[in-house]
């Protein structure tokens, strides 16, 4: 793992690239990713540009998807099943969670297919392959921004004022993006080898929806299961979003369960502990995903 391939040896003015058989595990070669940063921009822009071509409603789909889900959740979970919502009106309670969730599932669905869909590029031109899943995720962030404007409208409607905590929101957004990147790297690389991934992903997202506090508050989960529950990085993201925007966890019992959570002997505050665990899991998935992707990258052009 010591030597990266291809390595760049500067010699005078020109750059020399040495091509040799790859090692089992490669260094991440982030330099090439940086060199091709403009391509990330162009691919993201292409994804956005093309996504809603020849659709009647265009970019409003970015809002409609979470909004309609919110309506359904509000009727069935909030209205009929009387699921508690930490004292927040159920529609805004679920919509706040659906925003990062949509970002995440969208990334999983699009990014996991990104390599296979763009196979013609992979077999013809060199560029860091990570650009493809990354660009799909960034395109999802733009959708997120559009849907976020609706959330602000809802907050005005329900009379919820923003607090200073809103400045922590980018942190939770970043956590959502990093989680999406980690999972997408794994899924997209696996999809090149095993097309089963295409069938697994819808299941995975559906299953993941249930183990994430979207339709219900995290406070409903029994205390003894909370540590296990916190291993899902999206739990930290969703609870963080609610905390930053709606002020949950402080004015309700939702964070209470986490308040005395003992993490390796450390006594950490409720949400803090949750976010730390989520962050660590997310980082682990991301780093392992980066290395796995790099390891499989050399096979892509031959296998796809």
């Amino acid at each position, binding site marked *: 793992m010591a030597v990266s391939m291809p390595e760049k040896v500067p010699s005078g003015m020109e750059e*020399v690239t040495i091509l*040799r058989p790859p090692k089992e595990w490669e260094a991440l070669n982030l330099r090439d990713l940086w060199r091709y940063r403009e391509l990330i*921009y162009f*691919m993201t822009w*292409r994804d956005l540009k093309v996504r809603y071509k020849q659709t009647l409603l265009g970019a409003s789909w970015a809002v409609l998807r979470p909004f309609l889900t919110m309506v359904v959740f509000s009727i069935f979970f909030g209205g009929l099943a009387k699921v508690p919502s930490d004292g927040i009106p159920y529609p805004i309670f679920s919509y706040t969670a659906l925003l990062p969730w949509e970002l995440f599932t969208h990334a999983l669905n699009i990014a996991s297919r990104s390599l296979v869909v763009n196979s*013609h*590029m992979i077999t013809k*031109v060199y*560029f860091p392959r990570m650009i493809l899943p990354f660009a799909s995720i960034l395109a999802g962030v733009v959708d997120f921004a559009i849907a976020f404007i609706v959330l602000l409208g809802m907050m005005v409607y329900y009379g919820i004022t923003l607090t200073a905590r809103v400045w922590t929101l980018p942190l939770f957004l970043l956590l959502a993006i990093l989680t999406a990147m980690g999972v997408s790297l794994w899924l997209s690389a696996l999809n090149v080898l095993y097309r089963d991934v295409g069938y697994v992903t819808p299941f995975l997202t559906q299953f993941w929806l249930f183990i994430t506090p979207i339709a219900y508050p995290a406070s409903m989960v029994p205390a003894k299961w909370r540590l296990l529950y916190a291993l899902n990085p999206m739990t930290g993201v969703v609870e963080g979003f609610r905390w930053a925007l709606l002020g949950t966890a402080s004015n309700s019992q939702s964070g209470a369960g986490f308040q005395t959570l003992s993490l390796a002997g450390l006594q950490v505050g409720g949400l803090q502990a949750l976010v730390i665990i989520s962050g660590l899991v997310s980082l682990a998935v991301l780093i392992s995903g980066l290395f796995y992707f790099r390891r499989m990258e050399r096979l892509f052009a031959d296998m*796809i």
Partner: protein
Amino acid sequence: MSDLAIRVENLGKRYHLGAFGAPVIRYQTLRDTLSEILSSSSKPRVSNPQSRSGENGSPDHIWALRNVSFEVKKGQVLGVIGRNGAGKSTLLKVLSRVTDPTEGQAEIHGRVGSLLEVGTGFHPELTGRENIYLNGAILGMKRVEIDHRFDEMVAFAEVQQFIDTPVKRYSSGMYLRLAFAVAAHLEPEILVVDEVLAVGDAEFQRKCLGKMSDVAQQGRTVLFVSHNMSAILRLTEETLVIEKGKLALRALTPRAVDYYMAAGFSQEGERRWHADEIPDQAYPFQPIALRVRNLQGKVSETVRSVEPFTVEFEYHLAASMVGLRVGIYLISTRGEYILTSFDTDDPVRFERFATRLPGHYISQCQIPADLLNEGRFIIAVNASCFRVKRYFQDEQALVFNVEGAGAPGMQWPEPRLGPIRPRLGWKITSIGSFED
């Protein structure tokens, strides 16, 4: 700073053979992997990945490239020729970093621009302008570089008035010109070009060749792969001949082309189509094989100019077809069409085979003796219903050699111009003589 642009040492690339014998690794399902793991205990697989048993390694591997070493100097335009599947494209893929070598190494001095295909990443919904930026970025250009050369590219492609139209509304010619324009304005130190000239009309090809020689004159290194021998002869001074994954010859281009044309690369004289090579719209027509048989009836890649030979096309019809015609085109290696012939050209046969029932068929056609000049020829096949549908077409189904021994004029050992060499009836009349 050395004057070397590329140094390749013992380069090798090995592919696993897929389930259908194609030299690619097919994607597998988890079930396949699990069953492989389960069966591997009883049937030990080749453990040493570098094993050199046999010509092509172990049976489930194929070396697309092996022990290839060469150097290219800065500013040199090097041609690469070899028949389909010889490993030319694999070599270019390794050099342009699309795929990694399995053994050996290559040293590349400078930025490589690869033109393995024009229009990579073009999206039909985006406009010409948008695709220029996108395609440029994919090929490794910086945004400012694209800005800088934008007008030049548009002018080259001659699509000024359509630049803000989605490319899905472009004619195929416009699309190609635009795609090539972006690629042609890349300015890397090393340009790797694969057969981009095989597409487009004659006018477009002339333009592309012109652009290529401009690039060469600017002192940049070019690696140029083509089946178009006249383009190779025009653009390159030196040429590599790749044969079965190995470097067979490196010589001045005229000699390399002669070698390539004359070597009679032992091909079986048969082309078979795999299920995945047949497009869906071919149904119910299923091509099976195309063969060239010599006078003795043996399948052969080389036939004699002075003997008749047979071209046979074997196919299967999954349903009965009305008005089907199955035919061949004979094409020279320079891309000139020599003849077109269909199996129902004859009015009697046209009536008799108006409807073909489902089943297995062979359409055979005899090419008369004393027709073709010595050299290599390409057979293309076509199965269609006139003005209804073209079911199947393969522009380069099979390549074969014609050997000239005994042909008219062989007493002079010189190449004869033109693809045909018929035995024409000459008459020499002496009108008066000074002897009288």
